[in-house]
């Protein structure tokens, strides 16, 4: 699973970071950084929750 963030949509509200700080980090520059684009399968539920809870529909999961 690969995490894809559409940075044109992302508004750095850090919701995803609240769900999975191991993967998503909003830094002091107010930009979102994806710490690990290929999270382990064990994190799938959290990744799906992030997809659903992103208010901008900016996150998607690619299977490759």
């Amino acid at each position, binding site marked *: 699973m690969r995490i894809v963030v559409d940075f044109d949509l992302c508004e750095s509200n850090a*919701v995803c970071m*609240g769900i999975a700080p191991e993967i998503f980090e909003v830094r002091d520059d*107010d930009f979102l950084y994806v710490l690990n684009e290929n999270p382990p399968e064990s994190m799938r539920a959290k990744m799906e929750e992030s997809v659903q809870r992103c208010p901008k*529909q900016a996150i998607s999961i690619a299977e490759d």
Partner: protein
Amino acid sequence: MTPTTVIVGASLAGINAARTLRLQGQLGPIVVVDADPERPYDRPPLSKQILTGEWEPEKILLPAGKEDLNLDFRLGTRAKALDLASRQIILEGPTGALETSSFDSLVIASGASARRLPDTAGIAGVHVVRTLADSLALRAELDAGPFRVVVIGAGFIGAEVASSCRKRGLDVTLVEALPLPLERILGAEMGQVCAQVHIENGVDLRLDTGVLQIETSSVDGVERVRAVVLSDGTVVEAEVVVVGIGVTVNTQWLEGSGIALDDGVMCDNTLLAAPDVVAAGDIARYPSARFGRTLRVEHWETAIAGGEAAARRLLAEASGETPAVFDPVPWFWSDQYDRKIQLAGRPMPTDECRIVHGTTAEFRFVALYGDGDRLTGVLGMNRPRHVVQLRALFDEGVSFSEACERAAAL
């Protein structure tokens, strides 16, 4: 026979309830009823990107509404009445024809509607913003470049509409009945900061001011707004008026049904309103042990979480599992001009408010609210990371003073 679930409201709470039921394995029919004829869409952009013209309606379709979940959508159909004993609901279809629909379980997710000013029905140029149709109608009038927009109510929706109009370069007068905007939610100190944000962005802000009357004139046989008369006697001429004075819950169809109503549908702490009947989203009032009172939360995230929890509640009932308690930490955001306001928790306006990060002068800060030594709120302006991190302190059960220390160290 497989059980049938009826969901009233195909918006955020209803759709997420439907999605959860399906993904958790419910096989029977799921009928999703909504009075709005549009495909399920997201509301926050209605006062933001749709109004400014940055986004087109296609972009705000709810993702779950586009998934293939085998839902039986009845759009343009209104629930008129509920008979709990016989588990039937009376629906009015797009043509006005009535039909009776039976259910085994029911999700009440009919949300809320924008409150309007009395005696303004049918006056052209007077708007509210709750539905896509509302937002597009207002946008069409903003496209025409009115010389002034009067926004009545400086709550979150009013503030966002004012912001979107300023982004379009329009002159805005924002009228608020309270001495400070958002005072009842954020307290006086933060209300003052919010007022300043409007003023810095060129809004003509009139606080402590009511509206006496909407003056109209007849244009080509159409009664159209001409001016707004304020409680201090001033007359503000405007071609467009937007009313943002809060909402009323859509409980009309439940009156007399036996469902307990009190500014919302009264639920238990698992969102159950009656046997096999749950409620979620803006309409649901539930007892919060966390905040020591009943809450009815009008936030985007709570509608998603509530929809999911309500669906799980029904499934728990069916399988005999112990249902989970619903008591999340409320969280919302509001975009105003170039500022992003986020609040986690539910402070009372009288709670103590302490700035723990940044300064209000730069409009980039974090403030914590406390009632005695209990943490009640985390407010951020352009500080999303801090709000998200500090929100977690609610679940850690951290005291107000410790939360302030932890916040200062972030």
